[in-house]
């Protein structure tokens, strides 16, 4: 380990993990633990931002790459972590006995994700994948209503274990075909049929993380059943890591992408359609967001299936802008939630009156997800679609754009509840300063990126340049 500075973001995370573990071990109040974790998370964001230009291979063998690809995604993961911890100020959806401990799992899982986006060797990748998953398995189970939490966690673990087993089998095939576990060497080995079969099987675990069809069905259940802050983390950081992972895995196919592309087109169309159509009928807001996440996995795949620098950059751009948008949505969930119960869409009624600012936050979130400017949702879709048309699939863009129209319906239903329906019995909502600041920061990020996407695009573009 010759260059310790290359590990800055990981060190910051490790520090946060140790501090929050210490809080849990001493048994401080939940609030102290939260403050410590939040401070560490903000430091992590700062460190990740400062570490953006770092590049190199910290280990003698080529198992861990620090380049602009990994650093950009690490910044995304640390932002998602900080937002999720800020949201965890209100922990009333979390089991009381676990409120001091949750942050430790956040950090552990985020550490796994950071390693995941840097891993360039299959075993390292697999270990990072598992590390990132275990924290989430535990987090998903911590809902204060035990049945809900257990169901969420059980689904998540069972699906996760199965997907992970299939991935492992895929990895063994890849090793058999290429006789190496180093991803760049595999990519250069020429893409034999056996290798492609291995990549396809490995994708199972990756698509699971992204919540894409056919391994998506945990997403709505787990989003719904996990504590609010855990769902936030799952919906944001996990997606960022999944995009990074997916790009690495797909790069192993070398130039032989034709069949993979056909498969990914099918997966993308089904993810979009299944996600959007199922979301139309949801009453629970978190569950709706779960299905919407499946649909967005489909959009993201559009960028990846074009196997080009433009497509990879578009996917990275999309997922980076997706983080603050989804944070806005979950912030509303956590703020509206009464005694930790999941808010139904009906319970958003009259939000414009109960808390005008929160109404605005919700509006930004829904417009962002639907791809309406001035949020970066439009630019994100535009870039993704550009990549797809560049790859020669005009009709696929038509399918995706029609899907976006369908999704607008249920996003507007949420807006309708918040802006049209009278508040009725629901009480006014007073935001805590932390929530106000978090909301302000995420809305400001969304609107800024919507009006001026150039900085994020050049980050995404430089990240994609590493792979293509």
């Amino acid at each position: 380990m010759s260059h310790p500075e290359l590990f800055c973001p990981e060190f910051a995370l490790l520090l946060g993990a140790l501090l929050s573990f210490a809080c849990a071990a001493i048994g401080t109040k939940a609030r102290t633990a939260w403050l410590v974790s939040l401070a560490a998370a903000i430091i992590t964001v700062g460190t990740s931002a400062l570490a953006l230009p770092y590049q190199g291979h910290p280990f003698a063998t080529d198992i861990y790459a620090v380049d602009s690809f990994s650093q950009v995604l690490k910044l995304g993961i640390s932002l998602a972590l900080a937002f999720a911890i800020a949201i965890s100020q209100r922990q009333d959806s979390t089991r009381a006995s676990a409120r001091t401990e949750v942050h430790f799992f956040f950090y552990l899982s985020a550490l796994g994700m950071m390693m995941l986006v840097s891993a360039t060797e299959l075993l390292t990748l697999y270990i990072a994948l598992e590390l990132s998953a275990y924290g989430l398995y535990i987090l998903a189970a911590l809902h204060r209503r035990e049945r809900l939490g257990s169901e969420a966690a059980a689904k998540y673990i069972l699906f996760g274990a199965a997907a992970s087993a299939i991935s492992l089998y895929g990895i063994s095939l890849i090793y058999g075909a290429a006789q190496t576990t180093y991803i760049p060497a595999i990519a250069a080995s020429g893409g034999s049929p056996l290798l492609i079969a291995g990549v396809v099987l490995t994708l199972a675990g990756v698509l699971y993380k992204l919540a894409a069809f056919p391994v998506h069905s945990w997403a709505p259940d787990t989003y719904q059943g996990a504590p609010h802050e855990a769902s936030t983390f799952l919906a944001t950081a996990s997606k960022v890591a999944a995009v990074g992972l997916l790009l690495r895995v797909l790069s192993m196919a070398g130039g032989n992408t034709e069949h993979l592309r056909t498969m990914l087109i099918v997966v993308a169309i089904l993810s979009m359609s299944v996600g959007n159509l199922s979301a139309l009928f949801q009453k629970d807001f978190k569950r709706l967001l779960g299905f919407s996440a499946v649909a967005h996995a489909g959009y993201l795949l559009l960028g990846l299936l074009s196997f080009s620098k433009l497509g990879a950059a578009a996917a990275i751009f999309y997922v980076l802008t997706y983080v603050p948008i989804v944070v806005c949505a979950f912030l509303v969930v956590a703020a509206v939630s009464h005694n930790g119960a999941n808010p139904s869409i009906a319970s958003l009624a009259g939000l414009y009156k109960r808390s005008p600012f929160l109404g605005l936050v919700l509006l930004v979130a829904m417009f962002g997800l639907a791809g309406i400017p001035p949020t970066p949702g439009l630019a994100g879709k535009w870039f993704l679609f550009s990549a797809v048309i560049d790859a020669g699939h005009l009709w696929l863009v038509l399918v995706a754009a029609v899907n976006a129209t369908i999704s607008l319906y249920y996003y507007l239903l949420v807006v309708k509840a918040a802006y049209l329906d009278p508040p009725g019995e629901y009480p006014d909502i007073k935001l805590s300063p932390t929530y106000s600041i978090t909301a302000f920061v995420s809305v400001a990020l969304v609107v800024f990126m919507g009006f001026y996407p150039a900085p994020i695009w050049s980050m995404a573009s430089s990240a994609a340049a590493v792979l293509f």
Partner: protein
Amino acid sequence: MSELPILSILLLCPLVAFLVTLVLPESKATAIKAVNAVAGLVTLVLSVIVWAQYDETAGGYQMVEDIPWVADLGIRYTVAVDGVSVVLTLLNAIVFFTGVLSMWTLEKRVKEFFAFMGLLVFGVFGVFISLDIFVFFFFYEVAVLPMYPLIAIWGSTRKEYSAMKLTLFLMVGSALLFPGLIALFVESGGQTWNLVALSEPGTFSEGFQIFVYPLLYVGFGILAGMWPFHSWSPIGHVAAPTAVSMLHAGVLMKLGAFGILRIAIGVLPLGAAYWAPTFAFMATVGIVYGAFVAMRQTDFKYVIGFSSVSHMGIVLLGLNTLGIDGTNGAVFQMFAHGVMTALFFSAVGFIYDQTHDRDIRHFGGLVGQIPVASSFFIVAALCGMGVPGFASFWAELLVFIEALRVFPLLGIAAIAGLIFTAAYILRVLGQAIFGPKNPDWDHLVEPTAWLTLPRIILIAVLLFFGFAPSVMLDMIGSVTGGK
């Protein structure tokens, strides 16, 4: 050319009004209205200045501002005006200003109303002046979405249904535009999104043009109320509150026609030539069908809503002739129809605010009860019939002359449609305005001087361009090449 970035200032006016509106507390309703009225007035003054500064003899795009936006992808914030944008920018400013004044009596959720309205106007200005396809589409979407809350919250008559239907229809249009617009970029070599560069002859093969043109034409056409995708439009009109109806029919539908003219026809002329007979036929059906349906309506706003379908059919027919007179007439009609419909909705809105009734059969002899308010309605009606002396006369005349030349049969059918137009308008006038007096409405009061102002402005504009059409035609002609 001015050194001052006048177009960007014009664009920022409604955005500043939007931000100030967001900051002001809900209780300061009058201040919010005043801020927006001032912003409207400033945009009006600025767009008149733009008109005056535009050099008609030089033609082309003027007052260009060009800043990289997403440099890596070749996306640039490029704004400029040509004769058509000058005209439509003025239209938007007029409708914005008079719309704010027409909503002076609004009491429900004033802050949010003007915030959404400011955002909408901002988007419309952006569309009219941007030359970059991405920027164009960005503003296009900004303009479309605020319609949902504006109708759903402040509207009437099945407002939630209408708002949702309108939004989904328009988004289906966008779904067609997405592949169409991006295909232009990719096919041209992936270097530029600039409309002027893409309009160079020879950029696109004929086969490509024929393939992509319908995507763009129908995508934009849905917003322009093209038959058979018009059904969102009348119900949207009916449900929307006055200023929103004014903006919707007055400006928003023009975005669609403008998109067809500038992007679909401008960039893909060979595709346009191939598809012109088909789409001209559909436009003619729209003219006749809209007028027919309007004859059977009993709700004031439905009559105007279907008349908009009919009048926008004239615009689309003019565009599809692909000739100089036809295009001049179409753009003139966009302007005239925008102002006229704004006046119509403003007049109906005034009556509805007092009566909460829009059924034509419930009224009679309004001219005796509220002569001033009725006269506004009568003026709009005359203009809608295309009576000489009003702007729309010249517009329709030009379109029909060109249509008779290019598509004789369709031209005759369209002119026959005018007879129905006269019929439905005279029916409304005969029943509600002049018919036997209905004593239920004796208590109605005339508009205050303040509320009269916006209507006076609209009438003045209609008459001015009715008597001096050459002012308008010189401006439009600087683009199309004819006077």
